[in-house]
């Protein structure tokens, strides 16, 4: 196994450079994991988040007071001067997410059923702004019912009834109350960001082996050696695999540092299994890229495009449910898409049995298929190069 040992020595000598990428990417993954509150899974009450908003009302009536009361469970009212530049800055830095204005004469127009709109400014793409929009719409819609169909009531009575109706909410329960929601959610997110790190680090590490073995004089010496070229190739692949699995192990250890209380949960082991299988396909892809070119910069460039590009279109950063059908179709030709799909399947499951895990195992099988395909193509490319050289 002399070629195998040499490959490991090459990786060891390139460790400082690889370690920089490793630390940086893990750092960014951890920041992204802890920066976001994971979706609550199990554990209790479905509670809306409170959003910081500014409300500027040009009139104060029972309708406006009712609007404030309707929004109160979901927002924190922030008192700010009505200064455009300052408001721009507050929105820019997310100190507020939403500005609602009530123009003068709104109450009168509303009671007359005359259309008059409430201008609002919100942070684009913010889901919290959508909830506030819904809340405002619901309050005014219900109040409109009373205004049109119960004209005999005073405005105060209508507002009181509308607020009482707004308090009617569905009883939301989670299927499995005892699941430790937060840490499992975080683990799911951490493992979701993993392809970006794994693909890049493994490809860069493996590239070092192929650059060394690709040198003309080294190639010629190896051809003279008693070792079968196929044996050398397979030993190189084995070294790639060992490096890939060591990288995977390091990433799993990091995950257990913050998710260790979840070690008893089946979900944790399935996340690890999924990431293990993905590592195999990443190792195969790295082996293929290394065989296609011995130029280090080209390999690093390809690693970047593969890691970042496939991560974007496969749902690592943008959830798959938000991506277009055509994009997902293209992404389905990458192992990253199937990894993210399997990860999402685990996150949503509360019961783990063969039936509920069928989708997960299918995604694993596809990833294994990719791994095998990459290695086969790489060996074929290598054989083709040898044949061309001779």
């Amino acid at each position, binding site marked *: 196994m002399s070629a195998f040992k040499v490959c490991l020595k090459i990786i060891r000598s390139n460790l400082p450079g690889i370690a920089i990428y490793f630390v940086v990417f893990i750092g960014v993954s951890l920041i992204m994991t802890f920066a976001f509150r994971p979706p609550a899974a199990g554990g209790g009450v479905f509670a809306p988040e409170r959003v910081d908003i500014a409300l500027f009302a040009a009139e104060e009536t029972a309708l406006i007071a009712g609007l404030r009361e309707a929004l109160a469970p979901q927002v924190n009212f922030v008192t700010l001067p009505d200064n455009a530049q300052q408001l721009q800055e507050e929105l820019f830095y997310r100190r507020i997410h939403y500005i609602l204005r009530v123009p003068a004469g709104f109450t009168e127009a509303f009671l007359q059923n005359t259309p008059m709109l409430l201008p609002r*400014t919100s942070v684009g*793409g913010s889901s919290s702004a959508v909830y506030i929009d819904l809340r405002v719409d619901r309050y005014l819609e219900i109040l409109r019912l*009373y205004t049109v169909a119960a004209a005999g009531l005073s405005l105060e009575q209508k507002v009181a009834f509308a607020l009482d109706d707004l308090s009617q909410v569905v009883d939301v329960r989670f299927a499995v109350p005892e699941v430790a929601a937060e840490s499992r959610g975080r683990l799911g997110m951490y493992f979701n960001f993993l392809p970006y790190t794994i693909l890049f680090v493994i490809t860069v590490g493996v590239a070092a082996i192929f650059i060394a073995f690709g040198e003309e004089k080294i190639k010629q010496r190896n051809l003279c050696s008693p070792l079968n070229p196929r044996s050398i190739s397979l030993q190189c692949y084995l070294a790639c695999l060992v490096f890939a699995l060591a990288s995977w192990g390091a990433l799993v250890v990091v995950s257990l540092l913050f998710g260790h209380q979840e070690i008893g949960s089946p979900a944790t082991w399935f996340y690890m299994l999924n990431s293990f299988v993905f590592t195999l396909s990443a190792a195969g892809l790295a082996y293929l890229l290394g065989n296609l070119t011995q130029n280090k*910069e080209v390999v690093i460039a390809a690693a970047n495009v593969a890691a970042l590009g496939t991560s974007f*279109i496969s749902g690592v950063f943008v959830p798959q449910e938000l991506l277009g059908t055509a994009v997902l179709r293209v992404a389905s030709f990458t192992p990253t898409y199937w990894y993210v799909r399997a990860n999402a399947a685990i996150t949503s499951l509360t019961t783990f049995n063969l039936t509920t895990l069928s989708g997960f195992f299918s995604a694993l099988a596809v990833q294994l298929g990719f791994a095998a395909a990459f290695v086969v193509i790489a060996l074929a490319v290598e054989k083709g190069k040898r044949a061309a050289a001779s």
Partner: protein
Amino acid sequence: MTHIFKYRLKILLSDKITMFWTLVFPMVLAGLFSLAFAQLGAGERFAPIDTALVDSGGDEAFVSLMESLAQGDDRLFNLVRATESEALGLLAAGEVHGVIATGTPLRLIINESGFAASILKSFVDSYLQSTAAVRRIAADNPAAVGRLAALLAEEREFLADLPLGRGTHNFMIIHYLSLLAMTCLLGGYVGMTEISAIEANLTHHAARVSLAPVHKLKVLAAGISAALLLQFSKLLLYFGFLVLILDVDFGSRTPLVILTILLCTLLGITFGAFVTALVRGSHGLKEGVVLAVSLAGASLAGMNVAELKYIVETYAPWLALINPAHHIADAFYALYYFDTYDRFVASAVGLVVFTVLFACGTYYVVRRRAYVSL
């Protein structure tokens, strides 16, 4: 000096690898972003929500409403009627996003919060609230019931969008701006090439140049000028690609945007020069540092997840302060969004400070460097 400038320019133009990193790679990524984000802003793609309905009787109106919303191509739900145990089994298997059980009270059972669960809750809440209002009105004034149906069916808008500032507060542009920031910082490869060309211990070419009767600073100035011209041209090309091909909106202050690109070009080149001069190690290690810092900096400035930029600003402002990619993205966003120039000037000052730091740091390291032997 013109001679050195001309030949440095030729050498840089022939460097295909650097050309890839500083032009082709960002274009490929921007293209992938455009592909991934194509459907996000429009909101036209809505997949029906897989829902299980457990009908224990007593609320035919609700069941009828659910069934009507589960019909047609633009349906809201993919509805499955089941018993409670069957429905919970489907939920556990992930085949439905939620289970709605009729009865008093109406119940919604979910696995996790998320888009689907929020839409289900919002829908059921609307039904309960409207029903409560209708019941109260009908109890007081039965004659009004007929009118209520028409009112409920009528769609009425109450809100209007009022943009504040020059541009809309667009999350998507953060991705492109942080990608532009990464592209500017990847200009560090060009800076690396220039420092490697004069540091005699780094390349054979530099060893020969150091013997020439030309002051090192002159050689460096000519090289940096060539690098600046080439890198600025590439960034302008990239900017044109973003604006004209991908239709990314940078606002209306194009001259200032171009000036900012020039400043960021200089920042990127001096950054690469600084890393090359300071970091002891192989060329690969220095390249790794430039790439890692560019990728990490851009990630923290919102390239992967736009909200991360603001989270870092809120909870780790020191990290935002020391991240040049953050200042670059902020400078462009300030031009896009604000009416006034205060924010832009603050970001531009940050860019200038970084550039001066990197340039002075490079000069301090490489000046009067002599070699016992090479």
